[in-house]
């Protein structure tokens, strides 16, 4: 592979892109913090000081209703929350690629059957199903990830199916068929790389969705409340009437982290969009260079210097 490969060019573009690199930087530092942070912080489940004491030098983010250190809880919570989020994102894309890809590529009866399954999952009301499943299965991160994958994969499969349908009729696919390539090679080596930006942004989209949904479920008490995650942090804060007592430090750090990680993931998504679709960037550039009154009036602007 030389440096002109499209995949490598995208890779370089992502690193150069401001939005994407900021997002990547923040997400990877949060992942790092969630892996190594708990080694340096206090035990998040231990009773360490007076309940609901505001931020102080001893406890930077104060303590919650159980007298636990909020900083340690926020860092420890990141680990489970991100693990569930990225696991969900990963499997949603993989399942979507397999089922949607097969449906789109083979067409006919295979498509009829797989589309039926996809449609059944699409019309199932997701939120009630999530609530029922989460309360019925033994609580825990594995259950959460499973429930989110089950309710989240269908939409993604649908998107990949339609992309596959548009790509499979292209000449380069027909050429591969005629040259005798096997179907699996055509799907995974010829077609899937062309969908890389779609797959990457599906992964990120699904991860963002998984963070929100999982925090929501746990906030409702449908997670394992004995573990530490961002969702259970909020659950306990609400249980301890944090709003009524005015102890903002029990929920603001967690809430802010959720907002920030979703924001950074979305920034990466924007970055991927801009890199794989260069027109988005160039439009911004030429709009800067032209006088306002020449834009969008349907007449070619004339910028003559020596007239």
């Amino acid at each position: 592979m030389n440096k002109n490969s499209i995949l490598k060019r995208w890779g370089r573009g992502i690193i150069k892109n401001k939005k994407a690199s900021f997002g990547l930087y923040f997400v990877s530092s949060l992942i790092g913090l969630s892996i190594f942070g708990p080694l340096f912080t206090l035990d998040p489940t231990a009773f360490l000081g007076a309940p609901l004491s505001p931020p102080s030098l001893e406890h930077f983010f104060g303590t919650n209703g159980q007298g636990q250190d909020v900083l340690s809880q926020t860092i420890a919570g990141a680990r489970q929350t991100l693990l569930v989020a990225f696991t969900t994102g990963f499997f949603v894309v993989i399942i979507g690629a397999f089922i949607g890809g097969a449906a789109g590529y083979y067409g006919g009866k295979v498509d009829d059957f797989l589309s039926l399954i996809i449609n059944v999952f699409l019309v199932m009301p997701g939120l009630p199903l999530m609530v029922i499943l989460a309360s019925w299965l033994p609580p825990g991160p594995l259950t959460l990830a499973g429930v989110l994958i089950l309710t989240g994969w269908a939409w993604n499969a649908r998107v990949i199916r339609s992309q596959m349908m548009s790509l499979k009729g292209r000449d380069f696919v027909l050429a591969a068929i005629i040259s005798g390539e096997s179907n699996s090679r055509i799907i995974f080596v010829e077609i899937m790389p062309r969908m890389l930006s779609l797959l990457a942004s599906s992964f990120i989209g699904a991860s963002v969705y998984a963070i929100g949904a999982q925090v929501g479920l746990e906030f409702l008490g449908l997670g394992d409340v004995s573990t530490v995650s961002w969702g259970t942090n909020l659950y306990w804060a609400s249980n301890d009437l944090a709003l009524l007592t005015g102890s903002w430090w029990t929920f603001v750090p967690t809430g802010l982290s959720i907002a920030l990680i979703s924001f950074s993931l979305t920034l990466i998504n924007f970055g991927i969009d801009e890199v794989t679709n260069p027109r988005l960037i160039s439009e911004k550039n030429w709009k800067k260079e032209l006088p306002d009154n020449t834009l969008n009036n349907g007449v070619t602007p004339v910028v003559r210097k020596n007239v």
Partner: protein
Amino acid sequence: MSKNLISIKNLDVKYITNKKPVHAVKDVSFDIKKGEIFGLVGESGCGKSTVVQSIIRTLNPPAIITNGYIKYNNKDILSLSVSEVRKLRWSQISIVMQSALNALNPVLTIKEQIIDVFITHKGMSKFEAVEKSKELLELVDIDRDRLESYAHELSGGMRQRVVLAIALALTPPLIIMDEPTTALDVIIEREILLKILELRKSLDFTILFITHDLNLLLEFADKIGVMKKGELVEVDITKKIKLGGEKEYTKKLISSLPSASGKRGIEFFPEPNLPSKTGIPMLEMKNINKEYLIGGFFKKKTLHAVKDFSLRIFKGEIIGLVGESGSGKSTIAQLITRLETQTSGSILLNGTDLKRNRSKNVSLGYRKKVQMIFQDPFGSLNNIHNVYHHLSRPILRHNIVPKIKLEKYIYKLLESVELSPGKLFAKKFPHEMSGGERQRVAIARALSVKPDLVIADEPTSMLDVSIRMDILRILAKLRNEHNVAILFITHDLASARYLADRIIVLQNGKKIEQGIAEDLIQSPKELYTKQLIAAASPGWLENAILEQ
């Protein structure tokens, strides 16, 4: 001398991009006199459309005009205000676009689209406008009752006439025609051009005619400008261009035009060596029919794409399959490559019948024997992979050479399609190559597995005129070197004449006529074949006018 209607001086058009601006039109100057037909010719991407779109200023940013004048009746169009430009459009300068299907709105009737012009520009009442529209349709030989039709209810030629009628509506002094006949079949193209010339006599307008087809311009233009890479290479009267012009590029364009009549020149290819047609044919199609079901739930129709078609191809033979769009020639290619399955009839490879099995379960052995070259070299290679990948996959799949010899084999293959050094080209990605280079890679891929038959589906029609002959020459050379049979599918009788040993003429899915190439050209039997030959021969327009 009549005065200049339009005068372009030092026109520069740039596209703003991320990096350096793209200089699409560089310092172009030419004049068009009143009543003239000015032809602007060039290959795709040469900037000819950009020039004409600057005249009516319909280019949208990021395109900007950075230098020069465009004077229309001595008034500079480039210094007009937005509302002045709008007034100028259509009443003074109108345009006929290439694709008539896209130029017409599919959800409005023809009537609504024509009266719109009258109501907007002339402020006519609706009744007046409808009456005017009827007259206009008759002017272009369309029945006035057709006014209530939608675009999809008209044929391609009729649609182009409607677009022409809309351009004529306000009888503007200048009409720009941007490839008005490119999407049409040759016989219809001929009718439309005759109509345009006839109307010009009565309505007296000036024409700026844009095309990639120099042959066409030589028929009727007064003056021709040749463009290349944004620059105007040469402007001269048609007579001088016809003799070869002064510039090297013009000469190359002129010399790359094959003709379907007269004596067959030997400057392109040596005489074909006709292979012996004895024994079992390599591939045989017997009474093939292909029907497609079209339409929705309630209105099912069958489209009979191929009717009772039979074909025998012997080893080392080149067969030209000539037909216009919709003649079923591409369907035949899909049937032979098993991308589609015939409705009835049988296909035999070396005498053994291929079962009508599903297209995706064709045996590897068959895939090795029958390969294909596609029309569009920009679509048939995967942008993700480099040339080496494209060539190595089929070779490994069919075990053509052992792995250690693979690299050398690929380099040799690339050099045999005149991409040398092969080592350099093997590393390239499709987007780093020109259309002609990509098509050569596609040819190399088809040949990589040493097939018995290569189907070439319009292999040159997406390429620039100046490199078409090179591709055909390579195909002819490879036939001699590898003794491979080629089914050359084309709409262009002239190029089939030069490449093929035998020609089969198709119309509406049916075989009209077949014969040895030169015999068929010299003494065609069917009227349709005669028309095709006439439309692809120099001087056809003059002859047609004389006939009238």
